[in-house]
C-alpha cells in the first residue's frame, strides 16, 4: 500500500491524533502467551522473520486498526505461513473447525472484530 506525503501506512501512526493511554497493564490471556511463544519459537528456528510478520500486519490496511494486538499478530503469522507453503488455507480452515469442535463451540462464529477499549 503506497504512502504519500499525505498518506501513511497502517502501522505508521506516530504523531496521529489519539486518546488517553490506559496506563493499567491488562496482561495477557493464556492463548496470547502461547501465541507469543509460538511466534518467538518460529523466529528462533528461522522459519519466520520478524520483518515479514511486520510487513504482513502492515498490509492489513483498514483491518489493522480494527484488530487487537494479538489478533493482528496471529493474522500476520497465518499470512506468512501460507505464503511460505508451510500450511495451506484449506488445511488451516479444517483444523480450525476441529479445534472449535473440541471446545464445543457452535459452528457460527462470533465476529473476529471485537470491540476493545484499548488496542
Amino acid at each position, binding site marked *: 500500500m503506497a504512502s504519500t506525503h499525505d498518506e501513511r501506512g497502517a*502501522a*505508521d*501512526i*506516530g*504523531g*496521529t*491524533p*489519539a*486518546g*488517553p*493511554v*490506559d*496506563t*493499567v*497493564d*491488562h*496482561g*495477557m*490471556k*493464556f*492463548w496470547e*502467551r*502461547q*501465541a*507469543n*511463544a*509460538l511466534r*518467538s*519459537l*518460529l*523466529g*528462533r*528456528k528461522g522459519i519466520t522473520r520478524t520483518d515479514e510478520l*511486520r510487513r504482513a*500486519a502492515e498490509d492489513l490496511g483498514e483491518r489493522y*486498526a480494527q484488530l487487537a*494486538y*494479538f489478533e493482528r499478530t*496471529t*493474522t500476520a*503469522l*497465518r499470512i506468512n*505461513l501460507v505464503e511460505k507453503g*508451510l*500450511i495451506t488455507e484449506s*488445511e*488451516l480452515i479444517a*483444523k*480450525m473447525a*476441529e*479445534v*472449535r469442535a473440541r*471446545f464445543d*463451540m457452535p459452528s457460527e*462464529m*462470533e465476529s*473476529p472484530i*471485537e470491540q476493545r477499549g*484499548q*488496542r
Partner: protein
Amino acid sequence: MHDYPYDFYANRRPGHHHDHQHDHDPHAPIVERDEGPPSEYEVMSRAMQELLEAKGIITADEVRQRMEIFEEEFPYRGAKVVAHAWTDPHFRRRLLADGKAAVAEFGIGMEAERLIAVENTPEVHNVIVCTLCSCYPRSLLGMPPTWYKSTNYRARAVFEPRAVLREFGTELPESVTVRVHDSNADMRYIVMPMRPAGTEGWSEDRLAEILTRDTLVGVTVPRVRQDPGGSPE
C-alpha cells in the same frame, strides 16, 4: 491515577510460581486455556500450532518451554542489570557504552536483541516507544504491557511525551529535557533511572524490586516506599 503503578510482574518472583510438572509428553497437546469460549484468533493460533506440530516443525514442549522463559526469566533480568549498574560504576559505564556486551558479561544472553541503555540524569529523562509496532527488549523485560502496544501510546508518546507521562503520574519540570526514543529498527532500549535517595546500602536484590518495568521503559521513576512505621522499606 493510582498510588503505585500497577506492575503485572510485581507479585511474581522467580521460584515463587505455582508448581507445575516438567515431565510433559513433548507431543501432548497443551490443554490449559482461559475461561469462556475461545475467540476466532485463539482458534486460529491453536490450529496453526497443531498443524506445525503435526508436520514435525515444532513440538508442544518447545512452545511450553518458550512460554516459561517469557514468564519466569525474561521479566526479571532488566531490573537485575540496572540494579547492578547502580552499585558498580564500572559496569554502569560499560552498560551505557555497549548494552549487549555488558549484559552478556553479566551472564545474560539477549538472543538476537541489541541493547542501548540510556540514563536518566537530573537534566534528562528518557522514555521509550515503538511507533511502528511494539519493539521492546523482551529478553530483559518480558512481554510489553498492553499500554505500550496500544495505539494511543504509540501515537502520542512521540509528539506529547510530557502529557503521556502525566497520565502515568509522572510530572517533569521544564528544566528536565525529555528524550524520546522511537525504537524503530534494530536496536532495543532500556532506561537506567536515577537511583533515588534513601537506598544507600541496599542489596542489589532490594534495588531490583524498585526497578519496576514501568521505570525501565521510562514512564515512571523508581519510588522508595515508606512503611507506616516510618523506616524505609
